């Protein structure tokens, strides 16, 4: 009876291992702790295909261009998928420098009792890149230096261990699809409306659709290079004038916010369309990106808070 029970147990264990491996690409050994299991897993060079999601979804909206093999496997990972570098990056010094700056700023704020500055408004704050915090006291600086040393030693260990190993998190098929998609300007990849996964479109069809559904309608007007430059410059100078003449109505934080935004480099808002794949026929949702657009987004940021 005991032998039979043992056999059943082993069979269940094998089946569970198989199921876990099939579903997650790995399985944990119950004899070890969670940390040890984790360490064992990441130290193994598991085949990438086993650790990838199986529920891949993307929308092929191309009618003129053929997609390279492996597009589904690549884009199905979604646009938020982080590509791992093929070898560990050597950027410890840069990271530590960033961390040290952050620690020094915190110390500086504490020392000058600025931690609870009522003037500070996160929504309308632009970093002063010209200002560098003074060094923190020696014991803090020593800790930072020691931390960097230990981190670098560990990094060297990892580097030497993985010297001749390539560690991408994409399969060769996905990598080849990525390269082909990157170099093909005839197709365009866009996220979809309502977050329904990436979509691939023929660039020509996409541009035609944007023009037809949005830009060539009564709501928009095409500007020549001169017109756009003049209008943009007029906008910036009108904004500067408004702030200068109304400086008394603004708080110190608001004045600093505008003054710093005027110094930043500018680019225009960028228009793009998101395919509404949940509708038929598929139309495009118009979106204007204001990321890194200080001239236009700083007043928008101020009025919208």
């Amino acid at each position, binding site marked *: 009876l005991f032998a039979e029970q043992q056999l059943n147990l082993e069979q269940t264990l094998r089946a569970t291992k198989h199921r876990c491996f099939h579903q997650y690409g790995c399985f944990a050994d119950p004899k070890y702790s969670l940390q040890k299991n984790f360490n064992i897993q990441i130290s193994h060079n598991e085949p990438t295909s086993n650790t990838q999601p199986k529920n891949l979804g993307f929308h092929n909206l191309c009618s003129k261009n053929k997609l390279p093999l492996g597009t589904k496997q690549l884009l199905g990972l979604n646009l938020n998928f982080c590509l791992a570098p093929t070898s560990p990056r050597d950027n410890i010094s840069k990271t530590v420098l960033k961390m040290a700056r952050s620690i020094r700023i915190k110390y500086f704020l504490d020392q000058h009792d600025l931690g609870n500055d009522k003037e500070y408004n996160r929504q309308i704050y632009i970093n002063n890149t010209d200002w560098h915090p003074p060094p923190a006291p020696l014991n803090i600086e020593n800790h930072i230096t020691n931390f960097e040393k230990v981190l670098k030693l560990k990094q060297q260990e990892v580097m030497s261990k993985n010297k001749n190993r390539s560690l991408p998190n994409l399969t060769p098929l996905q990598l080849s699809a990525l390269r082909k998609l990157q170099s093909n300007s005839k197709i365009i990849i866009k996220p979809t409306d309502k977050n329904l996964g990436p979509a691939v479109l023929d660039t020509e069809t996409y541009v035609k659709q944007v023009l037809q559904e949005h830009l060539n309608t009564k709501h928009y007007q095409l500007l020549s290079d001169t017109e756009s430059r003049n209008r943009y410059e007029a906008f910036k100078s009108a904004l500067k004038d408004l702030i200068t003449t109304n400086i008394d109505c*603004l708080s110190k934080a608001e004045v600093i916010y505008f003054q710093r935004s005027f110094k930043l480099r500018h680019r*225009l808002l960028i228009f793009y369309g998101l395919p509404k794949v949940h509708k038929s026929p598929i139309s495009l949702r118009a979106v204007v990106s*204001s990321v890194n657009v200080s001239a236009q987004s700083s007043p928008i940021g101020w009025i919208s808070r």
Partner: protein
Amino acid sequence: MKELLPLIKSYTKNFFEVLGDLKTLDIPSNALLFSADAKSMYTNIDTTVGIQSFRDFFTSHKTLIPVNFPVNLFLRILELVMSNNIFSFGNTTWLQLSGTAMGTPAACSYATITYGQYENTMILTEFDAQLLYYRRYIDDIFGIGSRLKQKKKQLGRNSRRESTNGEL
């Protein structure tokens, strides 16, 4: 603008807030549910109407706005921003002639307040007796009313005519 949003009577923070309200609401058996969705709300808000709505909104809520709030500067910057929606598409440059650009942080609040001012002064005052519940999340409206049949068509007509060029 975000701080002004709660002054809009139909303003709702999210779905959970509406769900919470509905649980406590005493709904009569002859009540009717209705929902509406504005057609291209962002692009259909005429800039002049939008700015005027804000001006009226500030006037009608004068007592609730902090005294040091720079209303005139706010309106002038809003006008400057809304009439200079310049953007690029590929190697071309465009100007948006009406409405606000979706994707900019001000778009949601601008649309909510512009239409909210119209609601506060026109819809909610005129249909107050018929509406048991009325909430709007940007361009999606959900409401419960009684004796709405006669007034329903009028509500739709008014929304088309006033405030924005939009259609419900």
